[in-house]
């Protein structure tokens, strides 16, 4: 009897197999199309070379420029893409789908860069360094989101917390110095985290609305003070900035050194915070409890975890991370506050969190992809490519969408995300 039914309808496993095989074949087709695009769309004038500068004259260790002959390189790139595509299409190896697509996209980006740079040059190291810098506020915003959404509190207020951090950093930094400014920004960010927690945990307010209210409140207050007070008392808005400091030896490594080991406090801070929160959330008892509160608060409650307290603590921690990220805008970058200077980076951080599957490392990776696309478009705008600047400005967003749709697929939020918990 059981044998017959299993023959008549495919088991869930088989269904899954055929779906992933189909996806593998579609990806194969996509890769072949990319190969054709590289071959015919990215024509390089024969003999032209693309020059990528790796070191500046000031660097301790000098390396020559990376000179790539445009035509042959893109020929090889197209061939590799075609090979990956055909292999994927014929064998449909589901296991390799993501890897092939990842490699394929990397090859495409390289071919595109070589095409755009043919006959010209730009500083590759500078671009990578900028990638890291531009990723910082987004990664910290994303990490703030991870901390609060892992305990099932949707945090739309990251944008407001970043802005509050930036404002506090500038104000307190101007009065009492950079370090105090930074700690004040962390405290204020944490304060808004606690406010959000109070609104949604204790008063069970709608989480989205509570977040939006905080964003509007912070935008209004900071804009008001900026236009009414800062314009009058200029010394309140003239904060010192944390300069980049080179880590000895490591900072001298060509290409990687400037990117990872010659940055300011905020860049190192972001990397360390991502590492700590990954360890905390996934390798400690308290981290497990926090995740349990996010997945099934009732069960966690039954086992003696204080759901309310856990939510308060993590949303506040998230706010502190966002406050630190906000301080980057003023103390880590431009030394002064200006209206709405975060300009939506908090929302992009939120997106980075979703793309990163609610994992700190994932959020950082998404932020880096965004930063990479962002700094690439800045270089491309200088190379006089025939692509309109409006399209270049879209590049960071398009890149993120492609990577997410292609590589990550469906990401699953914590099961209880967004729902208030009522203790019985």
């Amino acid at each position, binding site marked *: 009897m059981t044998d017959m039914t299993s023959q008549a309808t495919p088991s869930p496993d088989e269904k899954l197999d055929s779906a992933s095989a189909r996806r593998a074949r579609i990806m194969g087709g996509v890769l072949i199309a990319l190969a054709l695009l590289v071959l015919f769309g990215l024509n390089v004038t024969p003999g032209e070379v693309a020059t990528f500068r790796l070191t*500046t004259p000031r660097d301790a260790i000098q390396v020559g420029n990376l000179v790539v002959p445009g035509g042959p390189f893109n020929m090889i790139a197209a061939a590799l893409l075609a090979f990956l595509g055909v292999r994927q299409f014929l064998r449909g190896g589901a296991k390799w789908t993501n890897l092939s697509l990842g490699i394929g996209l990397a090859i495409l980006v390289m071919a595109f860069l070589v095409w755009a740079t043919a006959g010209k040059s*730009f*500083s590759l190291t*500078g*671009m990578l360094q*900028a990638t890291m*810098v*531009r990723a910082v*506020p987004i990664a910290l915003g994303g990490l703030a989101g991870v901390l609060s959404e892992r305990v099932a509190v949707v945090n739309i207020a990251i944008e407001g917390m970043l802005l509050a951090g930036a404002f506090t950093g500038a104000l307190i930094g101007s009065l009492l110095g950079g370090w105090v400014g930074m700690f004040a920004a962390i405290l204020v960010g944490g304060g808004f985290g606690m406010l959000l927690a109070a609104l949604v945990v204790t008063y069970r307010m709608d989480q989205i609305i509570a977040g939006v209210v905080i964003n509007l409140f912070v*935008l209004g207050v900071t*804009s008001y003070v*900026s*236009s009414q007070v*800062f*314009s009058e008392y*200029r010394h309140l808005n*003239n904060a010192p*900035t944390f*300069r980049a400091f080179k880590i000895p030896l490591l900072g001298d490594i060509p290409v990687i050194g400037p990117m990872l080991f010659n940055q300011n406090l905020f860049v190192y801070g972001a990397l360390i915070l991502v590492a700590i929160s990954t360890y905390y959330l996934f390798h400690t008892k308290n981290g497990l409890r926090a995740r349990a509160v996010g997945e099934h608060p009732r069960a966690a409650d039954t086992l003696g975890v204080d759901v309310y307290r856990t939510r308060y603590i993590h949303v506040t921690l998230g706010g502190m991370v966002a406050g630190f990220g906000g301080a980057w*805008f003023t103390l880590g*970058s*431009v*030394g*002064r506050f*200006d*209206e*709405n*200077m*975060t*300009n939506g980076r908090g929302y992009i951080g939120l997106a980075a969190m979703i793309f990163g599957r609610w994992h700190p490392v994932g959020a950082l990776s998404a932020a880096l992809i965004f930063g990479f696309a962002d*700094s690439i478009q*800045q*270089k491309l*705008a*200088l190379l*006089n490519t*025939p692509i*309109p*600047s*409006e399209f270049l*400005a879209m590049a960071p967003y398009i890149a993120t969408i492609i990577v997410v749709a292609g590589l990550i697929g469906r990401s699953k939020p914590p099961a209880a995300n967004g729902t208030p918990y009522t203790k019985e």
Partner: protein
Amino acid sequence: MTFLNKITARTGLAAALLAGTVMTASAFTACQVTDTGGIDDAGFNQTAWKGVQDAMEASDIEGRFLESQAETDYEANLNSLIEGNCDIIVTVGFLMGDATKAAAEANPEQKFSIVDFAYDPTIPNVLGQVYATDQGAFLAGYLAAGMSQTGVVGTFGGINIPPVTAFMDGFYYGVQYYNEQKGTDVMVLGWNPESSEGLFTGNFDSLDDGRAFAENLHQEGADIVMPVAGPVGLGSAQLADEMGTDSLKIIGVDADQTQTDPEKAHVYLTSVLKRMDSTVTQVIDMAMNDTFEGGLIVGTLENEGVGLAPYGAFEDSIPEELKAEIEAVKAGIIDGSIQVGM
């Protein structure tokens, strides 16, 4: 309508008396809607607002402003001012062109003036204020070309719209003119007038964009950068401050930025002035003296609506010869012997 007319006709005398007393009692009110970037942006909006402030000091009038936080605020801000008894409403910014047009057509009795926009055909109750900023920027380009050590200068804009790109055009052609005269080969990064493409931040808010974009230009060799993006350029000034002005100098735009950004005054080689304050004051005067009519006023080098700011900290390091040449170029532009643009 007719019903209302009857009422007014019947109570005409009383109304006229009342209106008379009210008019003498209440001062003239000038209202302003800013673009995004804020009233304290040390440049664009702030300069236009200074025009109203100057008028407030000169004659006893009232001034009010509403800030636009986003482009979606334009219409709402305009509507709330229309209900607020303004004698003239000044909108600041090219992007407000459509909103201002709609408001002016719906309220033909209300006087409007818009900075950075020219309507064709003209609207009878809107006076446009535009500026030949390319003339001022041409001088800045010439100066930058003469001062660059690396032979590369750069510029970037906020959004690819005419009031922004006029600066970049002038800058580009000023450098080309220098190259022509001196047989040099100074390169301009960030703007290509032929394709109308270049480097744009896409906003007038993110100061850290200003830092990142200036750093990008510096990595590619530029040692003088002209940001045309409102407050975003303040981020570039911070970078120049950290790097030292031997590595990077900034050219300000709109206002004399050594005045509006005094903490970083030492990084500004000069500023390309766009005297919105003077045209806004002029427009308010016209509205007060009933000489207001729709059309256009254009600020040029000749009427000092545009120009170069003093050289500030670089007064001594700019060779006298170069200063004299710039004066000659300025005279050439005014008498038409030098064409800005190609």
